[in-house]
């Protein structure tokens, strides 16, 4: 029974996205025919049917694409990791088998995953390093891009020029260019002396000092990675209602207080978005050593596609955990929000100020 499931049924998973796709397409076709018939009979076309048809009309190409390339790809790579992929027999999936203590042949669906841990000694180490450097880089990128966005949002001369410079890395900071630059040693800030850092950090244990050293030697790369984050924060800052700032100013709040009580809470969802975006880009960056490791394993003669797929899924699991942790730390805390009396007060005042302004304008119009 178990053999039948593993040998025959599970590989069918490959077709699941297509079943979904054709199911939706068939349902749409039926809806279309029914609607057309009703239309011919002179009956009014229901709004829901019309919206369904037009909505699917607009997302149709994407839906087909995502079923084939994304869902199909996910199903396939998941299958590859539990089977042995033979290239010579037309991409046939063959079950993984092993021999137990009694000498019987048994199925070992997890063999690829086990061999990743046995063969790839670098893998756990690289993963650990990646996680540590992510934890160190994430707050720096977020804080840095927030500061830049705040400065760019204020009234400064030459705003356009500064913006142009700060968005530049979005355009050119990429794999090959970056690796050329790192090879030149341009990635570290020229003024920060490496030796001083080494002396300062000498007393710390190596697992702490090494990532910090790496951090400083790659400071420019990290700052270069925060272009999009600056963009997101800038767009978020523009959405904070100016009336809130005015109300706070009338109440005598200083700039410092305004930042903590109004700007930062308003940017909360942006911080979450930025954190997730940062984790995702850092994880899928082509300069990431794990990606290299996976590619090398995938195209190595002794390891192969199934092995590479198993590695990819292990990596995905780690990234998912990191994402979850980020989400839990940064997300909006509902119960805390209601307790924030100051902010509520400010919002109330802002509303009052606005309505006062409005009524003033109306009054002026009346007299005129």
């Amino acid at each position, binding site marked *: 029974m178990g053999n039948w499931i593993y040998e025959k049924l599970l590989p069918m998973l490959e077709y699941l996205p297509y079943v979904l796709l054709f199911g939706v397409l068939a349902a749409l076709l039926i809806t279309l025919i029914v609607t057309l018939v009703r239309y011919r009979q002179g009956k009014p076309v229901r709004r*829901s049917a019309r*919206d369904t048809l037009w*909505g*699917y*009309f*607009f*997302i149709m*190409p*994407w*839906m*087909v*694409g*995502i079923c*084939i*390339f*994304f*869902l*199909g*790809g*996910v199903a396939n790579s998941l299958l*590859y990791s539990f089977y042995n992929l033979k290239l010579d027999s037309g*991409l046939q999936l063959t079950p993984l088998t092993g021999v137990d203590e009694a000498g019987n042949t048994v199925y070992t669906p997890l063999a690829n995953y086990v061999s990743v841990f046995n063969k790839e000694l670098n893998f756990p180490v690289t993963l650990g390093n990646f996680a540590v450097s992510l934890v160190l880089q994430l707050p720096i990128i977020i804080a840095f891009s927030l*500061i830049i966005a705040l*400065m760019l949002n*204020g009234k400064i001369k030459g705003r*356009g020029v500064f*913006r*142009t410079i*700060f*968005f530049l*890395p*979005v*355009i*050119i900071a*990429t794999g*090959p260019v970056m690796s*050329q*630059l790192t090879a*030149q040693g*341009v990635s570290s*800030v020229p003024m920060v002396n490496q030796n001083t850092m080494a002396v300062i950090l000498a007393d710390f244990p190596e697992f702490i000092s090494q990532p910090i050293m790496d951090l400083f030697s790659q*400071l*420019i790369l990290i700052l270069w990675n925060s272009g999009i984050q600056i*963009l*997101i924060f800038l*767009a978020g800052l*523009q959405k904070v209602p100016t009336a809130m700032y005015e109300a706070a*100013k009338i109440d*005598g709040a200083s700039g410092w207080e305004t930042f903590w009580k109004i700007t930062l809470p308003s940017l909360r969802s*942006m911080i979450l*978005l930025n954190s*997730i975006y940062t984790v*995702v880009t850092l994880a899928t960056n082509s300069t990431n050593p794990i*990606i290299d490791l996976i*590619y090398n394993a995938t195209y190595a003669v002794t390891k192969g596609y199934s092995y*590479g797929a198993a590695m*990819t899924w292990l990596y*995905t699991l780690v*990234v*998912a955990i990191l994402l979850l942790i980020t989400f839990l730390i940064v997300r909006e805390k509902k119960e805390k929000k209601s307790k924030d009396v100051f902010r509520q007060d400010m919002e109330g005042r802002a509303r009052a100020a606005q309505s006062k302004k409005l009524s003033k304008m109306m009054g002026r119009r009346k007299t005129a």
Partner: protein
Amino acid sequence: MSENEALQKAKRKEIRKERFKKRMLGSADRRGLLMSIVIYVLLITIAFIYLYPVLYMFSRSLMNRSDLLDSSAKWLPSAITWKNYEDAILTLDYWNSLWKNLVLALIPTVCQVFICSMVGYGFARYKFPLKNFWMAVLVLAFLLPPQVTSLPNYLTFSRLKLADGTVKPFLITALLGQGFKSVLCVLIFFNFHRQTPQSLVEAAEIDGAGHFKAYWRIAVPLCTAAIVVVTLFSFVWYWNETTLVREYLGYGHTRAKGLTTLMIELQKFEDSYNTAFDARASSVTSTNKINDAIRMAGTMLAIAPLLVLYFVLQKQFVESVDRAGITGE
């Protein structure tokens, strides 16, 4: 009398002091001078850090061999040498590669912008069954590393004999809304079309425009800001991607046989250089060895079209960013 005068003098002094303090530290309405200085110093420092690698790259690329070894000539070359660029152009087969790269980046970008705008509009405007499911798939596609799907897709392409060094796989994926980072493009358009007032579109429909016409004539012109951002981003992503591009082109293909991109050529710069120059002047190999200046020249050449594009579109881009709301709350 004199007592009074002295008092007034003291008062005036006090006022002057107060005014000076205010100017330096700022008041509720105005930023103080000190704060301004801090902000500008910070901005200029960071701007320098951002520009430093590019400037370094540029000045290095103009140096000759002796400047590279001379530690006193760290910043400015003693004489401007364009020879590095000539060598790099020869190594990259620049004009040929540039043309191929433009084909490879422009066509999918146009398709991607068109399709993603439609998908974003569909999601933003209509309610339909399974909509939440498709939205969840969209977000999942953003979160999962592309490496998960790239291998099966490569196998699919090579099985269908599509990975043959032409633009076909790029075109197919872009037309089906699965181009490079298309999820982000869809999200940008989704967010933007959501802000378009429904009443405008409905008014057009009452006036007799069909659903597609309402989209094409009303919604598209209203989202030009988003179009600028997405076009620039897509072009940049297509230009800069290497691993996926190599899979789509098929591993057996070189620039002699099929399309190529400058970034891929840059990755194998050293090998190409050695084959290009060792064959020609094998007797003087010592002076012909590759150096940093030539490498930097090659890198500059590879990003030059992006820089040109960015500085042309820079004004629209910076303005669009304000309005595009690339933030998907």
